[in-house]
């Protein structure tokens, strides 16, 4: 009897501990992003720091983004054609490919790939800096790690994401054109004119860019915070890296639903 009571109490305690832990982590995350945003000045003052991170976060991600964009556009075109040709509406292929890329696929897939390609690298790098005690060493030397390490990486991610998403969508549209027009023989004029008449600059393109900026902030925030908050052990870093990819995916997919409902739900 007493042991079952003890078990119950222990169970309730463990629930409470988990809730407290996650609330505490959330609080740390918000203090962290506040410190990072306060350090924005360094990005303009020491431009070379940002430049280096733009290279490792943005430039090195182009390859996977471009290849994925091309294949996604080609597959969309191929599958869309099969459905549309039944209704004699294969001219709408361009519209379908462009809208799905610009509104959804571009921002979301770019964010997921970015989390896997650049986000995990950011977490591992910052986590290892913590393991090898580079971050405490900086603090001892009165160098603010937020300014030297975190802020350049964070802003590089935020700047890179919309650019990468635009590259993804543009190459995707080109892939859709290759398969639709060159391979399946859809009329090129119809492909482009249907696309242009149905894709709005503000409704679709700008909203897509806003989405990718939001994803850029969230994914990079998660990545640098997980690295900064990682337990300073080998295992801690590996767990933080996994958490970055998983949490980024959840955050991106959840936010995408909310943003889509806000932007396109009313129409």
């Amino acid at each position: 009897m007493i042991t079952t009571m003890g078990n119950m109490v222990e169970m309730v305690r463990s629930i409470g501990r988990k809730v407290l832990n996650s609330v505490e982590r959330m609080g740390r995350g918000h203090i962290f992003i506040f410190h990072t945003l306060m350090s924005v000045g360094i990005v303009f003052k020491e431009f070379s720091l940002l430049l280096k991170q733009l290279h490792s976060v943005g430039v090195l991600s182009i390859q996977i983004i471009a290849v994925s964009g091309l294949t996604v556009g080609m597959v969309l075109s191929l599958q869309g054609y099969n459905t549309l040709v039944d209704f004699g509406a294969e001219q709408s292929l361009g519209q379908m490919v462009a809208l799905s890329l610009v509104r959804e696929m571009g921002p979301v897939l770019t964010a997921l790939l970015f989390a896997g390609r650049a986000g995990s690298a950011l977490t591992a790098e910052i986590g290892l800096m913590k393991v090898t005690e580079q971050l405490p060493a900086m603090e001892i030397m009165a160098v603010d790690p937020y300014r030297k390490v975190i802020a350049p990486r964070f802003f590089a991610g935020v700047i890179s994401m919309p650019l990468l998403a635009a590259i993804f969508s543009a190459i995707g549209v080109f892939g859709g054109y290759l398969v639709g027009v060159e391979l399946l023989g859809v009329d090129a004029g119809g492909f482009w004119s249907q696309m242009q008449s149905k894709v709005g600059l503000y409704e679709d393109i700008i909203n897509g860019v806003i989405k990718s900026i939001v994803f850029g902030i969230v994914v990079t925030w998660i990545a640098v915070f997980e690295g900064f908050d990682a337990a300073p052990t080998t295992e801690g870093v590996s767990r933080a890296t996994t958490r970055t990819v998983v949490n980024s995916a959840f955050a991106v997919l959840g936010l995408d639903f909310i943003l889509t409902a806000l932007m396109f739900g009313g129409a």
Partner: protein
Amino acid sequence: MLGKAKLELTVGMFVVVGLAALLFLAMKVSSLSSFSGSEGYEIKASFENIGGLKIRAPVMMAGVSIGEVSNISLDTETFEAQVAFILGGQYHLPKDTSAAIFTSGLLGEQYISLEPGGDDAVLKAGDTIKLSQSAMVLEQVLGQFLFSKAAGDE
């Protein structure tokens, strides 16, 4: 590690390519709407029934797109649909122009077709087109056809 010059070059190229992709999306994929408010002017027309007409539907004259629908509302006194559309500033149409709602293809989207009149005066911003022809609703047309068929049989 990369040299500074090469680093700057690759990052610069990344930014340029990204912006070029955005420009491509804006210019080639979307319609950088040529009938935006600054250059165009707004005309209104009322219809008994607009069928499935939607905002941003094209406005055509002689098959050429010269504007787009900007607003659709219901007039609470006459119970007719009030359709506002923006025409490109370079088009000056006679005052007795008439408007009709047609469908492109059998199941395609609906658009407004303008038929020019012979008046010397031109439509100005805010004017209302007097002559209008409603959209053909497929069910009504079918109903009329069946009705006339039944009447003919007697």
